[in-house]
């Protein structure tokens, strides 16, 4: 029993250190703007509840529960929202035009999502991609909705 508790504490410490080091990696990709019901951010394998104002980073996962909705705005003005029972990964977000670093890859794993493109599409259209389990979408602008129906 005591050993189990120690393992849990050690696990929490490790994940705390992990997420802290992940958070210190670069600038946020954007911020959570809208949350309804159950919604969470997955970072470094750890799931945490999402709140308006929370920072989003490259490689984060976003999830909603049965009555959840989530809306985020990225630094290049891209807007992404999720309906209930939905899951997406922000696989890539690079927005440093001065350094020639531009890229946005989003994976819609299940559920419904809306996507409104931002500056990255305007500056380098072929650097923006939405993927689902069966589909690759090359986005040339602007306003798209996606359903990924996987039981």
């Amino acid at each position: 029993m005591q050993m189990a508790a120690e393992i849990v504490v050690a696990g929490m410490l490790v994940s705390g250190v992990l997420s802290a080091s992940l958070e210190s990696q670069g600038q946020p990709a954007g911020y959570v703007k809208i949350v309804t019901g159950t919604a969470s951010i997955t970072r470094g394998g750890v799931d945490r509840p999402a709140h308006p104002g929370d920072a989003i980073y490259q490689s984060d996962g976003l999830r909603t529960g049965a009555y959840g909705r989530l809306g985020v705005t990225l630094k290049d003005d891209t807007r992404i929202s999720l309906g209930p029972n939905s899951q997406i990964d922000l696989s890539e977000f690079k927005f440093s035009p001065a350094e020639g670093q531009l890229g946005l890859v989003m994976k819609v794993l299940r559920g419904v999502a809306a996507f409104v493109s931002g500056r990255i599409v305007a500056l380098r259209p072929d650097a923006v991609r939405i993927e689902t389990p069966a589909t690759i979408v090359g986005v040339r602008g602007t306003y798209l909705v996606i359903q990924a129906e996987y039981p």
Partner: protein
Amino acid sequence: MMRLAGAALAVVFAAACQCHVRIVQHATPTPHDIIALLKDPETEKVGRAVVSSTSGGSVELTHKRQATRIVVGQPPWAPFRFSRDQIDQLFGEALAALPPAPRHFLLYFEGGSNQLTPASEKLIAEILVFVRNRLVPDVTVVGHTDTTGAARDNIELARTWATMIRDRLVAAGLDSSLVSVVSHGEADLLVPTPDDTPNSRNRRVEVSVR
């Protein structure tokens, strides 16, 4: 009552769903994706998307409410058109959570000085009001130059301008924790020009409120 409402809805949906498109929701639907292009309500524009199946084949969406359906292992369906009701039915929940559109304010300096033009000076107060009216705001102050001079130097120059504007906004009462400063140097022109071209509209600081 609930069942009646559900049945009525199913009838409406089936009726709206003309015979050439049957996106009927079965108890255990075939795994699939649906991608639809909508008109941007802000700009009234319809963009473009190229939809490819991971197993080959692709279609292009170019009209409002044009959509395609992809079943794993098959090429995308020929594009078809959704009604407004069908879009609401399938995507309403996601669309309801879309954050408000960002707004951009462009600030200009008097030729070669650190003084804002009178029109830009007025925008400082307007920006503060706009930020205050947003529920969950974040602000980026982006410096931009024209293509005169070396790209490296322009990154530094644009950062100096952006930092000046950030300081002005914070002095006027903007919460500094909401603001970040970035420089796009000469890599994000408002007016496209060749290299080494002076252009007063490109020398600007852009305040983006999201």
